[in-house]
Structure formats: C-alpha cells, structure tokens
C-alpha cells in the first residue's frame, strides 16, 4: 500500500502550501506599501502553484488505484460520491471537497494574518522549514516529489530572503517595530515544534524512502532562525509547550473558517465546471 502513503504524504505537503498561500492571498490589496503588496502576492502565487503541482500528483495517484482501494480513502461524501460514480478525481476535488479533519497542514500556516509583524513571523518560521524540507526531499526516491521539491526550492529561496529581511528590518527599525516583531515571534513560536515532530505518516514515508525525516532538520532550523533573530537584535522566542495536532487532522478553530470561505462555491454549486 505504498501508493496510499505517497498519496497521503503528498496531500500533507499540498495542504501546508495551500493554506499558507490562501492566508497570504487574503492580504492582496491591503499591504502597507504597494511594493510589499506585490511581494506578498508573489509568495502566495508560488505557494498556490506548489499546492497545485502536489494535488495534481495526488489526483493521479488516486486515479491509478483500484476501485476497492479508492473507496477506503476519503471521509468526504462528495469525494466518495465521485469515486463511487467512477469519475476521475482532480486537484480541485482534493482541495475543495475535503473537510478540516481531512486536512493535514501544520497549525502554523492556518494562524491569522494579524498585523505585518505576525504575517512576517509566520512566513519566517514556515518558509525556513520549507527550505530545509524541500532540500532534503531532493533525495526522495519518488521522482515526482523530488522534481516538485527542486522547482519549489528556487521559489522558497526568495521567500526566506524576503521574510528574513523583514524580521531584521522590523527588529532593527523603530522601538515600536522591534516590540511588535518580538511579540509576533513569541506568539507564533509555539506552532513551530509540530513541524519537526514525525507523525505516523511521515515515519512511514521516510521508511519507504519517499519522505523526509523532519526531526533531523530541527537543529539546523534552530540555528538558522537564531542567526537571523540575533542579527535583528531580537531575543530568541521560547515556548513552555509546543502546540501540535494539525498534522493529524486536529486543527485550531481557524481552519474551519478558511475552508468554509475557500470551498463555498464548490459546495453551494456542486459538480460544476468553473
């Protein structure tokens, strides 16, 4: 059943970038400076593009499975209906018809945009993780995942540069910006631990050679984050407790609203081409 593992692993990767991209997309037209509005939209577009590649791959995997295997895959009634009716699954079915408990994104990406410092902090923590993840994924035995990682890596290099520069700029800007940046780093830090805690799916994916051992990335991550935080003249955030759950489908209350908004047309007018 390695194809099921590959499918679920691919969906987890896709969910992360889609929800992150969706969050940033909501800021379009509302940035503090026109140039930064455009920069944020670029990042969002990259992430939605990555999500599309991943969901398309996931859809191919589903469509190549036997009817019996497919029937076991999803809780979502509309997806099940499609499978029962022997219809092909598309990228959009996977993004638009699964519910919050089906989504496997980490909690960090679904957190609210907040002010500019919160938006920056979330991207700073997430993009750095993505950079290390995709770098490790270049060695995946699954050639599609490796190829997606390679293509995405070029984009993420720009994302980490953008976020790191803003952490430094706000940290070393005014007293107000310094305080806000420090607060935002502190508030979002508790969602970073989850990214490095292997869930069962990730262990399996790692064992069969397609996935990454994320626990091995944590030390490098900490060091790289710390380097930037220091350069910004800020304190490394601390957390007595790291929140987890998203990767196992147990989300914060935000995700339900994100999906309600994102999926509404597909649900109000089901089975139509747009």
């Amino acid at each position, binding site marked *: 059943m390695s194809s099921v593992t590959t499918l679920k692993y691919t969906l987890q990767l896709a969910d992360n970038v*889609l929800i992150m991209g*969706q969050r940033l*997309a*909501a800021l*379009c*037209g*509302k*940035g*503090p*400076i*026109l*140039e*930064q*509005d*455009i920069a944020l*939209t*670029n990042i*969002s*577009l990259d992430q*939605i*593009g990555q*999500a*599309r590649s991943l*969901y398309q791959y996931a859809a191919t995997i589903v469509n190549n499975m036997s009817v019996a295997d497919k029937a076991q895959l999803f809780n979502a009634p509309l997806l099940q209906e499609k499978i029962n009716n022997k219809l092909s699954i598309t*990228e*959009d079915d996977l*993004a*638009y018809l699964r519910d919050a408990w089906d989504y496997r994104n980490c909690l960090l990406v679904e957190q609210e945009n907040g*002010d*500019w410092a919160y938006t920056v902090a979330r991207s700073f923590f997430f993009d750095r993780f993505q950079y290390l993840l995709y770098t490790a994924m270049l060695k995946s035995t699954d050639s599609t995942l490796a190829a997606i990682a390679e293509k995405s890596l070029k984009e993420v290099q720009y994302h980490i540069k953008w976020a790191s520069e803003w952490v*430094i*700029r*706000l940290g*070393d*800007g*005014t007293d*107000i*910006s310094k305080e*806000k940046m420090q607060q935002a780093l502190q508030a979002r830090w508790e969602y970073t631990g989850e990214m490095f805690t292997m869930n069962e799916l990730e262990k399996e994916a790692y064992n069969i050679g397609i996935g990454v051992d994320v626990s091995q990335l944590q030390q490098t991550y900490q060091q790289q984050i710390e380097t930037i935080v220091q350069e910004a003249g800020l304190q490394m955030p601390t957390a007595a407790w790291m929140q987890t759950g998203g990767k196992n489908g147990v989300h914060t209350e935000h995700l339900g609203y994100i999906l309600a*908004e*994102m999926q*509404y*047309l*597909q649900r109000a*007018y089901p089975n*139509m*081409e*747009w």
Partner: protein
Amino acid sequence: MTQVSFEASFQKKIDEEIMIEPQDYMPDEYRKTLIRQISQHAHSEIVGMLPEANWITRAPSLRRKAVLLAKVQDEGGHGLYLYSAAETLGITRDQMLHQLHTGVAKYSSIFNYPTITWADMGAIGWLVDGAAIMNQVPLCRTSYGPYARAMVRVCKEESFHQRQGFEIMLNLSKGTPVQKQMAQDALNRWWAPALMMFGPLDAVSPNTAKSMEWRIKRFTNDELRQRFIDVTVDQIRLLGLALPDENIKWNEERGHYDSSELNWDEFWNVVKGNGPCNKERLATRVKAWEDGAWVREAASAYAEKRKTKKAA
C-alpha cells in the same frame, strides 16, 4: 526664449508628434492635467484591486484562484508604473496618496460597485478591462513620454486580463442553467457602469477639448464608448447571453449600434461619493495605509541606520 516662444515650440512638438519628456518645457495646465489624469489612473489601479481581491479567497478552482491573484497583482504593478510616471511631473507618491485618501483625487467610479457573485470576476475582466483597454490603447501614443511608455506595458497585460474575464463568462454561459443565469446577472449589472467608464457625454465633458488639442487624448468619450458597444454586442451574442439593453439595435445609416441613454444622474452621484461602495473602498485603502504607517517608519529608520553604518 520668451514665454511665448516656449509655448510655440511646445505646441510645435505636439503637432509633429514628438513626445514631451520630463525635462522639456510644458505649460502649467498641461502638467496639471497630466498629474490629474495619471494619478487618477494610478489610484484606479490600486482601488480597482479591491473588488476583485474580494473573490481571491473564494475562487472556485485553484487555477482560477491563481489566475485571479496574478491579475490583481498586475493591477498593483500598473499602479506602480503610473505613480512613477506621475512622479516625473514633480509630485510624490505620498502626495498623490494623500489626495486619494482625503477625497481630493478621484479614481474610476466603476470600482464603487460591489462584486456579488463569482460571475462578476468574469464581467469585470471582460467589460471593465475591455473598456479600459479601449480607453488606454490610444494612450500608448499620448504626448507625454513617461505616460505613453507606462501605458505600453499596461496594455499588454490588460489584454490578458480581458481574455481571462471573457473565459470565465464563456465557461459560465456554457455551464449549467444556474451558471448561465449568474453570467447574465453579472452582465446586466456591469453593462451600464462599464459604458460610463468612458466618461460624461462629449457635450458636457469639461476636459476633453484641451486634452485633444494637447494629444493627451486622441478620441472623445463618445467615440470610444460607441466603439466599445459595437465590439461588445457581438461578444454578447457569441456568449449566447441576452442583450442587457432592449434598445440595442443596429443603425444602418450610422453604421453603429444604437442603445439607451445612460443614467447620468447615477453617474454623477457615484462620482460624488454616493455609489454603493465609495465609502467602503476608500476606508479600506485608508486603513491599509494607516495600519502600515509603523511598518513604513520602521523601514525608513532601518534604511537610515544602514546608511549611517556604511558611511562610518
């Protein structure tokens, strides 16, 4: 040279289709007219991001989401080129934004209408960007160099925008009955506002004559509006939708379509701030600007520190 000879040489350049550049002499009125028009155009681009941004998070497919996001981002880019073009005339972007935020500067009234259904994304791309292209293509040859060059870039992207809008409409019109109904509803609502984008009737347009003389404008409002109607009626038929105005009829003698008189009361009311979304759109822009104040201050403080460090 005397003032008179400056002006004569300016008009000679205009007449010979030589572009006016920032360092060239230009009459004050010409400069003012351009600042008004270019900044209004730039403001329209950035306020115009809002009605469409309203649907990015709700786009019905990932492809539509990505295309719409890219499109709205382009509008931001157009805003940038245009603010830069206006800055060559001796006004700063901050000054122009101040004029926008305080209601001194206008932006296109079309963006004061609400986007209620997904089909509005189709109608805006197709009709609003279509009307914009009709207005803007002649501006690629406008007499002020930086404006003309900015418009060349803008127009290239606008044609992609119009295509994506038409594609949404085509998809809806060929879809289920409810989708077709959604497309028709959007067409009916956006038709008249799109025609009003060409500005008031020539007979009452306060700026047209001088702008034509200076070759800032090359066609009158009514000429462009008629051209748009003629092209669009055929497209409506291609979509298989009903004409949004029962008085649209081919006039053999004129070689154009006739159509209903527009509701100019509504037009002037929206211009004056009484459109359905005037207050909301402006408030959104002002809030984004005010919320961003500490960010911009931090960015300049940081840049200043870097400069001092480098100098030391």
